[in-house]
């Protein structure tokens, strides 16, 4: 069926992107922070349009791309992230660039890329939407043209990104060769119809696909681009990278792994589990010795990716009900992780606008000069570490619960151990803020009201999810269900 109405919210977002770029083209004098507020407005419209799609019957566009609750979940998430990051960038970009419309336009387009990644039920569509998101990120990372670090980060990101896409594609071509189909349903059918026995082409294909998507979500050992891209990128783009691109990568992985190749789970689940263990350990251990805050958050987010990957392995080990539990655990943790990350970067952007420093020592004595920001940063770090009453605790708990099967038990144990390691370097940041005297200027300064309001709203959200996770959990469970309906994932006949 050709039903063009299933992506109306994305038409709104993409249309606004073109309108914003056109606005600056014809009115070059338009206020640069005004563009940010327009983008935020577009994101609100996108979000509201997305609300109408909740709970509707799943629809598919000729089996290529589907609009169901899973898609709508990522649609709302994308709109929310674009909203927050646009407001976060308003003053940052105004002070640093002369043209900002492409920045905001690309942000909206990148959000659409994420939605299509979540919606794709066919390899070509998945690839094109992955590249749509990646291209916008390459440009956004290098947006500060005269900045040495920004252009270097962008070059490293695009070279490794293109390299990983090529590997991903080679894996896809092998899977296509074995199954003769590029739709997820067709692949699942052909794989389950195959007489059993391991086919080297299939295993190599799975491993290459895993390496490709591992690059995109920055799983170790494919993580080396992430710290560089995070550190060199403009501050709000770092927030965008660590929330949107991570969530999008997992959207693609979830749909691809649960709908297409879950039938041959025995051939990839052990690899995902090893990848998860390696990723969380490396991320957390390397984070300890970091001096730059963005770089530290990059490694800490690599650690978080490690925790999230366990759920993917758990999908491979469980039955459909176990799959729903694991997926909804992952989805709820994505909400908690995104909220805490956005909170952290909102506060950090406010501090950076004032001090111009993004290393850990730059936060020295922040509790003296700006106690509110110090409190906000502390909240977000506690949430990252998973302390009770903050979002990170509840969501991580649900995720580990969903991911625990008899085979994945040891990785979950390792993840809990890693959470303790991570507490150490989060507390190091808090120590800088509270136990040291400020360097230089000691007078109190005021936070920009937009960033302050945003920080208050996000703190409330983090506390709300932490103390009352019910609504977030219901949302994630509803979003997880379409992936495991019989018929969508044809033949959940699993290899024992």
């Amino acid at each position: 069926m050709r039903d063009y109405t299933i992506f109306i919210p994305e038409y709104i977002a993409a249309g606004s992107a073109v309108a914003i770029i056109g606005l600056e083209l014809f009115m070059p004098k338009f206020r640069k922070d005004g563009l940010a507020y327009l983008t935020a407005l577009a994101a609100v419209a996108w979000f509201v349009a997305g609300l109408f799609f909740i709970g509707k019957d799943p629809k598919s566009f000729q089996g290529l791309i589907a609009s169901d609750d899973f898609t709508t979940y990522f649609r709302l998430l994308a709109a929310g992230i674009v909203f927050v990051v646009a407001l976060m960038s308003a003053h940052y970009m105004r002070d640093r660039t002369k043209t900002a419309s492409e920045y905001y336009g690309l942000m909206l387009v990148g959000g659409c890329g994420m939605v299509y990644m979540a919606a794709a039920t066919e390899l070509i569509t998945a690839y094109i939407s992955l590249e749509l998101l990646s291209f916008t990120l390459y440009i956004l990372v290098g947006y500060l043209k005269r900045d040495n670090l920004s252009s270097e980060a962008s070059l490293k990101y695009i070279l490794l990104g293109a390299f990983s896409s090529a590997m991903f594609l080679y894996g896809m071509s092998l899977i296509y060769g074995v199954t003769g189909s590029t739709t997820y349903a067709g692949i699942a059918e052909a794989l389950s119809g195959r007489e059993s026995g391991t086919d080297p082409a299939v295993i190599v294909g799975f491993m290459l696909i895993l390496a490709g998507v591992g690059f995109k979500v920055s799983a170790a050992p494919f993580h080396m681009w992430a710290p560089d891209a995070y550190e060199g990128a403009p501050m709000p783009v770092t927030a965008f990278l660590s929330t949107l691109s991570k969530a999008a990568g997992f959207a693609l992985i979830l749909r691809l792994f649960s709908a297409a190749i879950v039938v041959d789970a025995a051939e990839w689940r052990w690899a995902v589990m090893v990848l998860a263990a390696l990723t969380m350990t490396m991320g957390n251990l390397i984070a300890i010795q970091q001096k730059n805050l963005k770089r530290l958050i990059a490694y800490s987010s690599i650690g978080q990716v490690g925790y999230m990957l366990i759920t993917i392995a758990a999908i491979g080990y469980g039955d459909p009900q176990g799959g729903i539990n694991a997926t909804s655990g992952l989805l709820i943790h994505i909400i908690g992780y995104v909220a805490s990350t956005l909170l952290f970067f909102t506060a950090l952007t406010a501090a950076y606008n004032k001090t111009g420093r993004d290393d850990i020592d730059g936060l020295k004595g922040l509790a003296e000069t700006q106690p509110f920001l110090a409190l906000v940063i502390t909240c977000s770090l506690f949430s990252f570490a998973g302390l009770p009453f903050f979002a990170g605790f509840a969501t991580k708990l649900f995720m580990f619960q969903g991911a625990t099967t008899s085979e994945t038990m040891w990785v979950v144990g390792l993840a809990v151990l890693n959470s303790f390691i991570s507490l150490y370097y989060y507390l190091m940041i808090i120590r800088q803020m509270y136990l040291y005297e400020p360097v230089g200027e000691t007078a109190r300064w005021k936070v920009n009201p937009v960033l302050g309001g945003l920080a208050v709203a996000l703190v409330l959200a983090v506390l709300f999810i932490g103390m009352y996770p019910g609504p977030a959990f219901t949302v994630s469970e509803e979003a997880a269900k379409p992936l495991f309906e019989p018929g969508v994932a044809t033949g959940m006949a699993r290899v024992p």
Partner: protein
Amino acid sequence: MVPLENYLVLSAIVFALGVYGVLARRNAVLVLMAIELMLNAVSLNFIAFAAYLDPGKITGAIFAVFIITVAAAEVGLALAIVIRLFRNRATSNVDEAAILKW
């Protein structure tokens, strides 16, 4: 008719050469060329599979067309970024882009 295996072996060799180029080359433009080589190997794979295993259907060929298009866009973008790095630092050598590390 040439058997399918020949195409697959050829494409695997081209892909491996591409990987070698990415790892061994020091100039960003040459790294990009190596990545192009990898993408071409993938296209060859897709077209060979489409012609031999999936007669009458052209999904693989369509995929190849998309890969060529996206690869062109990717190179355009990457060259723009290389030029910017060159303007800032007067080098297109990936080894010298090493301010950000560890």
